[in-house]
């Protein structure tokens, strides 16, 4: 079952930015959109393992800093024509805090 873990206060993640989170399940990238929604992906690009947390965020997509694949937050899928998927972790904001489920 999903086990919700507290990450940080929302304002420690910049808008249209992200933070790297070390966890027992490996490194996770937690993103914050312009609308203050949060999403979490395994911090490894499906292309060649680039750190997605270091990418540029626009809408609900991050552009990998290595070779510019675009990865979608909601399903972890690369935007076509690229093909690949990063694992998605449930994430939410509650009481001003960011939570992810591992």
């Amino acid at each position, binding site marked *: 079952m999903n086990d919700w873990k507290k990450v940080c206060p929302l304002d420690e993640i910049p808008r249209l*930015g992200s*933070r790297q989170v070390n966890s027992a399940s490996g490194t996770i990238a937690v993103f914050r959109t312009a609308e203050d929604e949060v999403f979490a992906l395994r911090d490894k690009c499906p292309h060649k393992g680039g750190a997605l947390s*270091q*990418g*540029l965020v626009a809408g609900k*997509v991050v552009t990998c800093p290595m070779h*510019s694949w*675009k990865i979608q937050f909601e399903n972890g899928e690369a935007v076509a024509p690229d093909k690949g998927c990063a694992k998605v972790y449930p994430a939410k904001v509650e009481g001003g805090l960011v939570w992810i489920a591992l």
Partner: protein
Amino acid sequence: MKKQKLVMVGNGMAGCRTLEELLKLAPDLYEITVFGAEPHPNYNRIMLSPVLAGETKFADIVLNDLAWYRDHGIALHAGKQVVKIDRKAQKVVAADGTEASYDRLLLATGSSPFILPVPGKDLPGVIAYRDIADTEAMIEAAKHHSHAVVIGAGLLGLEAANGLKIQGMDVTVVHLADWIMERQLDKTAADLLQKSLENKGLKFLLGKQTAELVAGESGRVAAIRFRDGSGIPADLVVMAVGIRPNTALAESAGIHCERGIVVDDTLQTYDPKIYAVGECVAHRGVAYGLVAPLFEQARVCANHLARMGIGRYTGSVTSTKLKVTGIDVFSAGDFMGGEGCEDIVLADPSAGVYKKLVIKNDTLAGAVLYGDTGDGAWYFQLLKDRQNIADIRDHLMFGGHHVGGVGDVGHSGHNKAAAMPDTAEVCGCNGVCKGDIVKAIKTHGLFTLDDVRKHTKASSSCGSCTGLVEQILASTVGGAYQPADTQDKPVCGCTDHAHGVVRAAIRDKKLLSIPAVMRELGWKTADGCATCRPALNYYLISTWPHEAEDDPQSRFINERAHANIQRDGTFSVVPRMWGGLTTPAELRVIADVAEKYEVPTVKMTGGARIDLLGIRKGDLPRVWEDLGRAGLVSGHAYGKSIRTVKTCVGAEHCRFGTQRSMDMGVKLEKMLFGMWAPHKVKLAVSGCPRNCAEAGIKDVGVIGVDSGYELYIAGNGGIKTEVAMFMCKVKNDSEVLEYSGAFLQLYREEGWYLERTCHYVARVGLDYVKAQVVDNAARRAELYERLLYALQGYEDPWAAAVKQPGEYVALEVA
């Protein structure tokens, strides 16, 4: 809101492209119904020639399969011809009685082959060449008959003739004019082309006018007879003498037509509810017959159908390329020349090469290339951009790699895309071979460089293979390839505005933040993307220093973290060594840092300083803190910013030195510290013309001479080496600072994001730069002053990170 009804008549290339563009902009605005006379989904008509030549199959040239229509909720009536438009009732009626009513109607009926009005034109065995049914009829005829005659030696006729020959027929091409492809080629090129087609086994009869097609015993065509009384056997006749826009339907509904359906710059017909695109259209008196302009029309039309109301279609310049494997012909623009034009001609008949460039008012007006078309895309770009070629006229004939600029392949000698084997690697960065690119173009129906980049990754990294990829695209899709107009090219898919427009809006309307720019210019996406945001951020901070917001989230990670990301996610730190100078104390600190943070690699960079590679992100602030204590700031070894000022030892030590180059270099680097630019900026100062600091390939190169300094600009030592150009001579150190500062400020204010100085100067011309920086003292002083103002009070970002290490450190969860 209830959806509006959009009906499209004509299910061909221009119409479907319009729908694709529309669905991208406004997927839910319309309920769409499509009528197509052909019983097929939309296919790539230009690939009929490869189908005829047996190089590909129909299934592979379908552009939008039935699932595409279904997935987008489009009702497709394939095989139904619309025979009536009732404008009052706002509905269309098909031949079988099917009706559909519309709020907006899109006419994309294409054109029909012109059939010579000669006796016998309706005989069995006489066909045109327009659709897949014609192509199949030709393939079938080749199985049972042997004598084919193609009337018309234009692009289509020659492609048909070549295909029929490959299918095993004996083929004669009959042509009225004195040379073939007379609308695309001059006589010399045409003669060369004819010769190589004759070597493939085609026969030609020129200056012949068809009088009659004669039936044989079976009732099928058996011979062709000419005006002069002669004749030859023919059991298949293909008419390829031209096309006529399909306007009958529109005319019968009372819509104004001339050569085609008349539209304005928004592709609207005289009835505001009715739009038209494609070959059926006459725009400013011109009806086009190649897909590239039709796709431009499609983009504009979709924008207006989506009610975004921006974008105008103002006409196109077209280019032609024959799709016959093994033969290279290219032509564009006004290739015949004439009054007020000058020709530059290169002819080497025994090598099978002929090139003619037509020049008018210092711009390229037309080009014909035969045998070596490698530079076609480059010439076409010069032509479309109406670029002034006075400066490069001497080498113009020798192609892009001699001059530099867009469409250049970077490695000369490689520019014969057509001759490359499929296994040859085209893109070294992403390991993409020619065969991969050709296959993607064919199976996905790609027409633009951007499409190829997206699908294959070729040319999407360092860009040095761009020219080669453009050539492959051009040789695979023929004249359908249209390089983007670089002057008007939108910044990215989020907007229709070009860099110049965006820069001007930021300046004229005093916009100070990215959201303000996006609002003002009607950005199509809420947050932009990784292409436009960094550009906007740069334009803001360079136009309004100390006023506009600098948005770290709109910078690439290297600029956001002030260090270079590595492939494994660690970072590298390159302490700045002003002018390449260091001290034992600095070296000691660097050594200590390397040991303390277990830096795996310590290396001298190509920029003459030390790189510490492989530092964990979380350690960065502490590394900078240690370095900072010894007075070392970090180097922007990553940013679109000042990089290094390389120096030689100069008059300080060298027996030949005329000027104190180390000292000059340090002054320049200190002045430019913290300077952001459209792209990176590198300088070098050498103490004498022996030039040990390699000033000849820098954005600004300074060479000491006995009487002062020579200043060179717009060199580049990277992807494609560009030798810097002499700008002027100055007397002393303060003039070096002022002149180079003014030049760099001009570039900062006018350069487009990711344009290096060499590309910027190629665009605006060296004369222009000299007029601003050298000849006009007041302008120079102003530019220099603005540069100093922008750089004043630059806060050391590494010191700031030391104070606020927050974001560098990863969070932890249990």
